[in-house]
């Protein structure tokens, strides 16, 4: 029976991985790690999870080991964060092109230097174009549920792509909160056994990810683009079926109190919940503001986003990463680009904040929304504003 448990979000992910009955976990177990792989190593050592746990000497090796495991058809999981994700960088592209359905939990963190172990989305944005499906969770329950959904989506024959589940470092990974933990018999109803269609096999040798000269490389990239874009339908189906079975529904773009809202704030991850409380208090004052949570980052949900903002005059976007010397936050630039071709579109105003573990409180979100309204009326000479920075 499903139990409501007070548990650290990282530890609940280890349970989800156990419930998914993974075959191989490979990880670098030292900072910046979380309890996710620490608990998994215990579950394997205790015999509670029948899987191979491969500790390695770096995240580059962790992802490389995952490639091999996934290529022979093993259900494969890993977790990392911050610098670790950056060290994996080149191998991430290999996983997606070779159609290896690896699932990875990323405890999103800032990047050094200066040294920061705290949370933001700098690490995520640096791996934006690696060809992985990327889903953002806003709380512990969403993380737990989406780790299970990730295996289902990744391993679907129409997809066969790796999936990252993003959860905010510290603000989610280190927090104890109530999470409904499913039973394995329930999970089995949703997640079928993994059958990889073309596994590496010594008796039937194949080459994966071989040389692509100029006469074929472009076609391989087109195929990858078509594949990742088409994965959205499968993601929607998986979320729908998860909701039908367990009663919790997910969608690429979630709107909160956007009815009649002329001003909408868009956020990702756990900060979107904090922003919801700011929206509540502003609504009580009669201000027509709403919030959008962007949950699916790749493939980017163009249609859902356009639908969600169609009646708004102003769209404020909070980025927790900075594109130095560029147009500000990477999310805001993508959103501007997604809306640019429309005849009627909201004015997009970018804010960058919440960097390196700096928290934005509900009153901080009120300030952001009020400042955004001011800029939309008076204009601004800047491409974007950094919120809460001391100058």
């Amino acid at each position, binding site marked *: 029976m499903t139990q*409501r*448990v*007070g548990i*650290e979000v990282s530890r609940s992910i280890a349970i989800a991985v156990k419930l998914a009955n993974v075959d191989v976990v490979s990880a670098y177990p030292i900072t910046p790690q979380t309890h996710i792989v620490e608990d998994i190593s215990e579950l394997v050592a205790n015999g509670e999870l029948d899987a191979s746990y491969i500790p390695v000497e770096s995240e580059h090796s962790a992802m490389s080991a995952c490639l091999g495991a996934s290529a022979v058809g093993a259900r494969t999981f890993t977790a990392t964060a911050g610098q670790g994700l950056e060290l994996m960088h080149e191998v991430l592209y290999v996983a997606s092109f070779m159609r290896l359905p690896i699932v990875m939990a990323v405890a999103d963190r800032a990047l050094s230097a200066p040294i920061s*172990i*705290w949370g933001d989305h700098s690490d995520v944005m640096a791996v934006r174009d690696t060809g992985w499906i990327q889903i953002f969770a806003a*709380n512990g329950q969403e993380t737990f549920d989406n780790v299970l959904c990730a295996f289902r989506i990744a391993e679907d024959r129409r997809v066969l792509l790796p999936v990252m589940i993003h959860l905010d470092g*510290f*603000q*989610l990974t*280190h*927090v*104890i*909160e*109530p999470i409904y933990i499913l039973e394995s018999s329930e999970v089995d109803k949703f997640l079928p056994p993994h059958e990889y269609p073309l596994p590496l096999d010594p008796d039937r040798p194949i080459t994966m990810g071989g040389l692509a000269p100029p006469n074929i490389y472009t076609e391989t990239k087109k195929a990858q683009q078509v594949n990742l874009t088409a994965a959205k339908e499968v993601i929607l189906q998986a979320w729908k079926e998860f909701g039908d079975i367990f009663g919790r529904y997910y969608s690429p773009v979630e709107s909160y109190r956007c009815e009649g809202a002329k001003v909408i704030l868009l956020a990702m991850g*756990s*900060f979107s*919940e*904090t922003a*919801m*409380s700011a929206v509540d208090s502003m609504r009580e004052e009669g201000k027509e503001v709403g919030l959008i949570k962007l949950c699916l980052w790749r493939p980017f949900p163009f249609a859902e986003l356009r639908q969600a903002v169609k009646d708004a005059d102003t769209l404020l976007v909070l980025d927790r990463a900075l594109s130095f010397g560029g147009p500000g936050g990477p999310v805001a630039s993508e959103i501007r680009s997604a809306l640019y071709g429309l005849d009627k579109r909201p004015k997009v105003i970018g804010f960058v904040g919440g960097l390196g*573990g700096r*928290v*934005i*409180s*509900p009153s901080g979100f009120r300030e952001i929304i009020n400042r955004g309204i001011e800029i939309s009326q008076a204009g601004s000479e800047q491409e974007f504003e950094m919120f809460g920075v001391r100058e």
Partner: protein
Amino acid sequence: MIDTAGLVEIRWHGRGGQGAVTSAELLAQAAINENKYAQAFPAFGAERRGAPVVAFVRIDSNKPIWVRAEIDEPDIVVVLDPGLLRVVDVASGLKSNGILVINTPKEAREVREEFSLNCALATVDATKIARELLGVPIVNTSMIGALLKAREVTKLESLLEPLRHRFGRLADRNISAMQKAYKETTVGGQES
């Protein structure tokens, strides 16, 4: 008096190794077992044994907790190490109807005068209780008892399961320490 039916925010001050973070976790688990919403987390940073540490708990009987920021204006502050009173402004931001729960061998009146505190105070000699019942001066479970005597944010019984789960063969002794501290804690009002 605080309204324990709404949102209650609790801040724990201890030193690395005293179990402040564990106390916060156990309390949140007890509240969640009572079907409430709760959240516990440490102040994020590099943990070092002996250095001042802070942990936070939010409990809400009615609705999910959306705020994940550290607690600046607590309803309750729990101090595991009396020495911290000289180092850290533990009462910082304490709500006017809040209470400070301190591990100290001194009378509340003495502590109040020594540190010029005018908030409501609850005191207990948790170090003595922990030494007696656990054999070590680790006061985290005793201070949960003291907190619950000061303000019943969860039922004392709700802690039994989380303590058993966490401490295994040491659970009974920790439960005794919590219960003894609950009995021995003196709860006072605000200075008039």
